[in-house]
């Protein structure tokens, strides 16, 4: 460590054998003359204008950022909605070819409903939900929607199943 310090000191001593040149007097005269000229040409800027200028620049920057955000948002929404519309336009798989499923009539009814209109429109969505509700109500009233009754008119749910005999009882 001390060897390193000695080397460092040696480098510093070596560097100190040279010196930097100072600005010559003619340079001083030239520069101060130019600076004085600039001083007289540029009057003192009023300090109260600075916050106003900063405010104006900040406002301009804020407007620009908001515009940029709106533009980006519109662009992305346009892309998204076109994709969503495309998806909505795609017909689902043919429900007729689907294997038998419960409430198939309701499923067919659903497939028959217009699903395109409510993608972007809230009132259309309400209308669509109302249609769904109505279709469901109709189906509930019809016989098809009723689940098949269990055989023998009894419930399949066994409320109190008989307990298995415990081995402990025999002991």
């Amino acid at each position, binding site marked *: 460590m001390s060897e390193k310090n000695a080397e460092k000191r*040696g480098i510093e001593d070596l560097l100190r*054998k040279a010196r930097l040149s100072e600005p010559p007097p003619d340079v001083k005269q030239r520069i101060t003359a130019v600076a004085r000229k600039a001083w007289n040409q540029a009057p003192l800027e009023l300090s109260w204008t600075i916050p106003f200028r900063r405010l104006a620049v900040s406002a301009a920057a804020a407007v620009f950022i908001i515009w940029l955000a709106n533009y980006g948002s519109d662009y992305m929404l346009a892309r998204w909605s076109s994709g969503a519309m495309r998806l909505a336009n795609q017909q689902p798989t043919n429900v007729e070819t689907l294997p038998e499923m419960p409430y198939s009539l309701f499923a067919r009814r659903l497939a028959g409903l217009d699903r395109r209109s409510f993608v972007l429109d809230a009132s259309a969505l309400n209308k669509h939900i109302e249609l769904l509700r109505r279709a469901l109500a109709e189906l509930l009233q019809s016989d098809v929607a009723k689940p098949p009754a269990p055989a023998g008119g009894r419930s399949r749910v066994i409320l109190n199943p008989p307990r298995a005999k415990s081995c402990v009882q025999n002991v």
Partner: protein
Amino acid sequence: MDRPEDNILDENLAKKKLQAVLAGDDPAAVELLWDYYAGDLFAYLQAVLRSRHDAEDVLQTVFVRIVGKRHRLANARCLDAYVFRIARNEAVRFASRRKKGRTVEVKSESWLMAKESQAEPSDLAEQLQVALARLPRRQREVIVMKVYRQKTFSDIARLLGLSVNTVASRYRYGIEKLRTLLRDITP
């Protein structure tokens, strides 16, 4: 040129006076600015640009810029850092313009001089100058300010807007590199 003040108290007083003169829009502030900053700025600019003539040109630009921003300097919390920031920006701008234009290559002019008392003046100064020129700018500016302007690490940190640790590590790395570069002439 040495600073007119020797201690921190006097320095603070001088700065207050300078800021008062700047706020009063008195052109006499130019002289005060010169007395206070010219030596350090000139050394710093030579370290950054590695050219005395370029340093003189940029020093002029820096003074004009300072005069243009005198209202801000008058209210600046850290006057030294503000002035050196202006100098650094101007020097970097000048260097990039020089690099882009490639009109004037960095000439091998001597910005480092041998001390009058040295017996073998020019050779050593030349070698030191070449070695310093091969250092990265950030290390070179710290070494120049420390060795040739007798600044402390905290002074340099304040002037350049860096932490003391950063300045110290730059100095250490710079000295390490110089040790390698100057291996032949170190005792």
